[in-house]
């Protein structure tokens, strides 16, 4: 397999990339894009795919199409060996999930659906405080693509899960696409209730039964349900979307939901380096967050947090004050509100002035922050499990919730999506991610160069070597490493905070210190490694404990090493003028904007 073409059919654009094996190594060589054609007047996704191919043909000189047929296999400069695709067009995979207890089986069901690449429209639970008729109305009106019904551990409650099935049956929901076919429902709950569920739902829905996602309180078994979701996504949902039957006949491997494919890549990165990874993909409509800690993979989607279609919802969810705190100049509240709404109604426009760029990047910080908070609240240990805790653990629990996303244990933070991948300066992407995610200790930061993670995710299912090589050489751009304080480290401006000693790759040693509330960049190139010894002042912690020194290897990147003593959480001055000065100082230190 030497020549691969892959597309991602997004909600607005279809992006094609060409991968070729040259001198024994796979490289991404050309890319083309074209508007997605799922909607009227075309209503055939393959039109957009063909247009994107045509652009790749034009740029690369490779003949890929013979009329509307993909030429396979590749011979010289003609044809490709395989075509692969992901899709989030037409709003992606929209699901509704149901479970007996909101914080137990319903939450597991939510994780199963999200991990498979779905947008969860609503979570119905026996104890969600809605009245039965409200639940039924909601199920009927939402028109999801699919429902995942769970509930009860094996041998546990039958009545609650049967009750939920009765509501689904009463709602008699119709799928979003295709007026005539039955709505797919996956049952992944208590195995003792299977027969009853079949009696209730078999005639009204396209029911499939799979293993319980929560066989016991202590164990979550999401894989079979996720597999079933992806299978039904292809068989029912995709097959109903305009042009997808044809598209499916072209691809050499099953079409994957875009976030499902990105999830695979995140897991591959984590596995390869045995590291903990957090990834984010910020789009126009939605923001996906992925985390891999050890063996545990979680993905969440903030369906209405994005930088174009959903930009106004960032304002609604984060609040105006939170956005304004990142804007380094004075702007009238009503002016900012109007600008945000104007971007929402004309989502394809781009900032023309630096001032506009700063506003857009301020909004993106909040979109990323809110999405990450939502992720942390769902990426949690299993609830309902009995375990003994000592008193110190109990305190920790209260402070941190049960999230699995421990920022001190995070090795790599990866960003993708327009506002990060296409920021005019890479340092802007790095600062946006540091401000939004607030990494602690030592964290490497990278971005997806031109948005090709979905393509590589689906490629990894057929050729892992190709996916890995392209990922390392052409996709991931290392920005550098952030060295920062740990959570709870708060000080006063100019207070003595850390001193450090850094040994550069050429053996040159530098010693310096940085007071509290500052940002400093030390250049260190891509593929370069240095050793840093950090000594925090007695009230500050960089991960080893208050006042305790730490020595670590740090990796360079296009930005370098960023030493961040701005506190965790980052403390911004209360008054406007001082805050403006702070922001100016930080952006200048990292050379984020033109002087």
């Amino acid at each position, binding site marked *: 397999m030497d020549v691969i073409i892959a597309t991602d059919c997004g909600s607005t654009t279809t992006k094609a990339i060409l991968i070729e094996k040259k001198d024994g190594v796979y490289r991404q060589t050309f890319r083309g894009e074209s508007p997605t054609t799922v909607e009227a007047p075309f209503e055939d996704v393959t039109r957009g795919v063909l247009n994107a191919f045509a652009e790749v043909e034009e740029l690369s000189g490779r003949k890929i199409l013979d009329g509307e047929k993909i030429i396979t296999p590749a011979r010289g400069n003609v044809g490709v060996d395989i075509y692969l695709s992901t899709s989030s067009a037409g709003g992606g995979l929209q699901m509704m999930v149901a479970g007996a207890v909101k914080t137990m089986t319903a939450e597991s069901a939510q994780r199963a659906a999200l991990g498979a690449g779905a947008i969860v429209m609503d979570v119905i639970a026996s104890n969600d405080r809605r009245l039965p008729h409200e639940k039924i109305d909601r199920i009927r009106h939402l028109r999801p693509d699919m429902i995942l019904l769970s509930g009860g551990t094996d041998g546990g409650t039958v009545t609650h899960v049967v009750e939920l099935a*009765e509501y689904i049956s009463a709602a008699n929901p119709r799928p979003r696409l295709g007026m005539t076919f039955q709505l797919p429902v996956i049952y992944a709950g208590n195995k003792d209730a299977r027969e009853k569920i079949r009696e209730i739902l078999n005639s009204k829905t396209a029911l499939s039964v799979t293993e319980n996602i929560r066989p016991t309180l202590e164990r979550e078994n999401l894989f079979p349900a996720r597999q079933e979701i992806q299978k039904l996504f292809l068989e029912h949902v995709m097959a109903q979307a305009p042009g997808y039957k044809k598209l499916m006949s072209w691809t050499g491997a099953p079409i994957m939901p875009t976030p499902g494919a990105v999830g695979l890549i995140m897991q591959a990165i984590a596995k390869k380096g045995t590291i903990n990874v957090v990834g984010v993909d910020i789009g126009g409509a939605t923001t996906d967050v992925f985390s891999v800690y050890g063996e545990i993979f979680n993905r969440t989607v903030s369906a209405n947090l994005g930088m174009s279609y*959903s930009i106004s919802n960032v304002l609604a969810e984060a609040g105006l004050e939170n956005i304004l705190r990142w804007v380094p100049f004075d702007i009238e509240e*009503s002016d900012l509100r109007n600008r945000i709404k*104007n971007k929402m109604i004309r989502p394809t*426009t*781009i900032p023309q002035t*630096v001032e506009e760029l700063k506003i857009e990047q301020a909004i993106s910080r909040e979109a990323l922050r809110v999405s990450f908070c939502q992720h942390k609240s769902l990426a949690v240990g299993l609830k309902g499990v009995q375990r003994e805790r000592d008193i110190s653990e109990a305190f920790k629990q209260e402070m941190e919730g049960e999230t699995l996303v421990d920022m001190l244990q995070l090795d790599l933070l990866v960003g993708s999506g327009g506002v990060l991948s296409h920021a005019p300066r890479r340092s802007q992407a790095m600062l946006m991610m540091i401000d939004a995610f607030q990494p602690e200790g030592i964290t490497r930061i990278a971005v997806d160069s031109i948005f090709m993670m979905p393509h590589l995710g689906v490629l990894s299912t057929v050729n892992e070597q190709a996916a890995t090589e392209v990922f390392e050489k052409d996709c991931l751009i290392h920005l550098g490493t952030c060295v920062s304080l740990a959570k709870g480290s708060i000080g006063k401006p100019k207070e003595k905070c850390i001193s450090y000693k850094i040994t550069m790759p050429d053996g040159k040693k530098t010693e310096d210190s940085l007071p509290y509330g500052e940002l400093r960049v030390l250049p260190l190139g891509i593929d370069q490694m240095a050793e840093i010894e950090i000594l925090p002042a007695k009230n500050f912690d960089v991960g080893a404990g208050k006042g305790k020194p730490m020595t670590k290897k740090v990796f360079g990147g296009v930005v370098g090493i960023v030493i961040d003593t701005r506190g965790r959480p980052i403390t911004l001055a209360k008054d406007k003028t001082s805050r403006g000065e702070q922001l100016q100082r930080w952006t200048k230190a990292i050379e984020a904007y033109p002087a």
Partner: protein
Amino acid sequence: MTHAYTPGLRIAEKTKVASHRVLPLLGDVVVKKGDVLRAEDVVARTHLPGKVHAINAVNRLGIQPKDLREYMLKKEGDPVQKDEIIAETKPWVKMLKAVLLSPITGTIETISTVTGQILLREPPKPIQVSAYVDGTVTEILEKEGVVIETTATLIQGIFGVGGETVGELVLAVDKPEDTLADDRILPAHKDKIIVGGAFVRHDALEKARRVGVRGIIIGGFNDEDLKKLLGYDLGVAITGSEEIGLTLILTEGFGQIPIAQKTFDLLQSRAGAKASINGATQIRAGVVRPEIVIPYETSKPSGAETDKPADRGMEIGDTVRVIRVPYFGKIGRIKALPFSPQTIETEASVRILEIEFSDGSTIVVPRANVEMIER
């Protein structure tokens, strides 16, 4: 690639408008192909399934779920009246008898011997779809609805709130730059669709609601006032179902922006005519923009059509509107469309175009930041 495609809103003096009038569920179409209809005429009817009520019968009766059927006086599918006894226990001592009354008038949907629940359904709710525009039925979509065609002036807005409404079109200002102040809204505007100028404030909207104005067409207004109008911060632009007493359509955007002269002139020329407007907006793939449809009186679909949508890219000489600061709202003609990307102030490398204004001045903007205005 010598041309670039850019979004544009339709502004057509006389064009063919086809309106799909479809039921949310299958039902009955009550008109025939060729019928000439008025906007208010009903074209199709159906019944929405009634609301479902659940009663925890076993708790109320103090019995086991598996025994529920033995105590039922009604079976699935039976009609019931409100307060009618649907189940009762049969104890030896009559005083201990427990009865279950129906909370609604409707039918028994399900009796569950697992959960012990009874689901009841209210009677179906009739709904109907009207023609919405004066026109002729050109196609029957069996059991679903109809297509109505008309020859009309068609103006697409950029954003709207509120659903379909019909009324006489009246100008409430003299020039596109005017503000629609509350003293411009008169009692005579009851049941009318009024055209404002560049801006409307919340107090004027309130007055319009009190007076009974059906719709307002305006250049721009503030997001702060949208929040007041809706009672919440609009997050995602999917609108049309708001019940706010009137329909509001913005032709230009948020802020104080005069209605484009061409749009204003067109609305002025059709003042006094019956207009059908819909504020429904949906900004995602498959964009829905608010619309103003003003049919011509002899509304035959075969009527002369003078304007067709421009399905071509931008060309030198085309009129465009800048849709982002710092030149937001300005209208000019394309002077140059250089092929190669250029670096703009933000340091991004993008494709640009040069625009010339009527006073001879020129500016450079990213191509993504303009929209075409139909000639």
